[in-house]
């Protein structure tokens, strides 16, 4: 039986988190020893770009190129995925969490009467039952969740699977999801998205600044370091509240939850609400002039010092090394 993966694309490429979801699904198929991975893609994108889903473990991509699906209209995407689900006869849908995928997953769960688990961190345990480990309390704990339904949806967290990169190109097949006009009732009137920048929720390295940086005019050194590392930039909540940085950079309990390999925090105290957004990072570096700053307790490496002195020096050292 196939495992269906809802994939997203941006700037003509499959998103990295979606490729991870494909690899997760491949892991699931290999574990249960049956079926294959079928990805479903919606809206305008080149077939050649979609074929790359194969490298991550998909054998087939179902593509509805209907341009009306290019914008992420939630209801329309949920209906389209439900239609792909029926056409493939799949029992499980996997997707990478995102602001669109979460909304789609919830509606899809009702449409296909599937049990839904979000924030999944590893492959399900399928020996004598079906339990899934998910992150709860904003990364502060885990829950083993048992799924009682025949149909299942797993919305996975970043780093839930290692990306496979050695698969062959997938076969891309066009299909018509037959989405009704009424599903396009909500109109997206405009989008405003930073292009070219590394996106924070998907970034492998994040450099974040807090109130310790004193003002927006001092973010140049954060951006320099980020650029050196190919990193995304983030910030603490007060920083985006005062308007020093855009809202979509706000990391934490009430902001973006990141899960990079490396998180570098500069002039951030490490309040528990901030930590909640970064506790899935593999490695945390903290730069703070106060040796008592709580962030040091959550850090792997730390430098006690003045950001205005340490950050430029560190960027130079990184430039020399990379």
């Amino acid at each position, binding site marked *: 039986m196939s495992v269906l993966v809802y994939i997203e694309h*941006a700037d003509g490429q499959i998103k990295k988190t979606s490729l991870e979801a494909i690899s997760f699904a491949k892991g699931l198929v290999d574990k249960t020893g049956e079926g294959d991975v079928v990805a479903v893609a919606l809206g305008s994108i080149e077939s050649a770009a979609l074929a790359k889903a194969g490298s991550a473990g998909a054998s087939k991509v179902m593509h509805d190129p209907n341009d009306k699906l290019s914008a*992420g209209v*939630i209801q329309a995407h*949920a209906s389209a995925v439900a239609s792909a689900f029926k056409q493939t006869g799949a029992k499980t849908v996997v997707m990478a969490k995102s*602001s669109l995928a*979460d*909304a*789609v997953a*919830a*509606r899809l*769960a*009702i*449409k296909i009467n599937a*049990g*839904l688990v*979000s*924030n999944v961190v590893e492959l399900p345990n399928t020996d004598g039952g079906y*339990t*899934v480990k998910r*992150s*709860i*309390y904003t990364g*502060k*704990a*885990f*829950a*083993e969740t048992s*799924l*009682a339904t025949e149909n299942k949806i797993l919305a996975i967290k970043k780093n839930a699977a290692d990306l496979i990169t050695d698969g062959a190109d997938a076969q891309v097949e066009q299909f018509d999801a037959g989405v009704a006009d009424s599903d396009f*009732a*909500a*109109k*997206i*009137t405009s*989008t*405003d*998205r930073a292009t070219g*920048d590394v996106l924070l929720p*998907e970034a492998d*390295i994040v450099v974040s600044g807090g109130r310790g940086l004193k003002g927006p005019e001092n973010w140049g050194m954060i951006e320099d370091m980020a650029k050196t590392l190919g990193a995304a930039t983030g910030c603490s909540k007060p920083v985006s509240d005062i308007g020093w940085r855009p*809202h979509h950079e706000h990391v934490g309990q*009430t902001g973006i939850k990141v899960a990079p*390999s*490396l998180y570098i925090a500069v002039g951030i105290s490490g309040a*528990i609400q901030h930590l909640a957004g970064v506790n899935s990072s*593999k*490695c945390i*570096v903290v730069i703070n002039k106060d040796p008592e700053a709580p962030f040091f307790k959550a*850090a*792997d*490496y*730390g*430098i*006690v010092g003045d950001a205005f*002195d*340490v950050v430029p*020096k560190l960027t130079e*050292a*990184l430039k020399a*090394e990379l």
Partner: protein
Amino acid sequence: MNILVCITHVPDTTSKIQFTDNNTKFDTTGVQFIIGPYDDYALARAVELRDQTSGKLTVLNVGGAETEPTLRKALAIGADEAIRVNAEPKDSYFVAQQIAHYAKEGGYDLILMGRESIDFNGGMVHGMVGEILGMPSFSPVMKLDIDGTTANMQREIEGGKENLEANLPLIAGCQEPIAEWKIPNMRGIMSARTKPMNVVDPVGDETQAEAKSYALPPAKAEVKLIDADNVSELVSLLKNEAKVL
């Protein structure tokens, strides 16, 4: 306008998370419960919209009697009446069924929720309710204005935002900066005591994805401090020890 806001009763964001009963139950010892921070944004915006249109604002929670102080707080902030669906919120499917049932009865023009609960963080209940009721649902919504029967919204997307237009009735999962959190004032607290608190029975008992046991992440090792004058040592550790460069 007739507005429903669904609120969660969750541990304060500074709570230490622990479990009891062989890791099958959340340990409430010493934990303070609050309105979910995202639900608080939804409530704040709902109060503003209710005041603009002189409608009615109902808050709803699916939970046991222990959640009543949280519902009272929502009344003190400005809701007109509260509904408590008397049941343990076992999973998002069960909760969504309850909300959908009572939302249908109430005939609301607008249903606001938080982007996600901060205990289970699913961010799923609004979409499920939307699908059950055949209503559009949007999340995470950062701006919401109502013009007659049209809603103008801004939704956060990865690395930016999109502007949307949709007709009422609809459901929105809210986050900042949709409104500023409101703190109850003395008058609010006094009047909340006499506002209706309706306790109703759950409908159905089906669940689909129940948590069976819990675990805490492994403890973090001690931080390695590097001298501020020796930043190249940090670079080398990141490269050779942590292997993240």
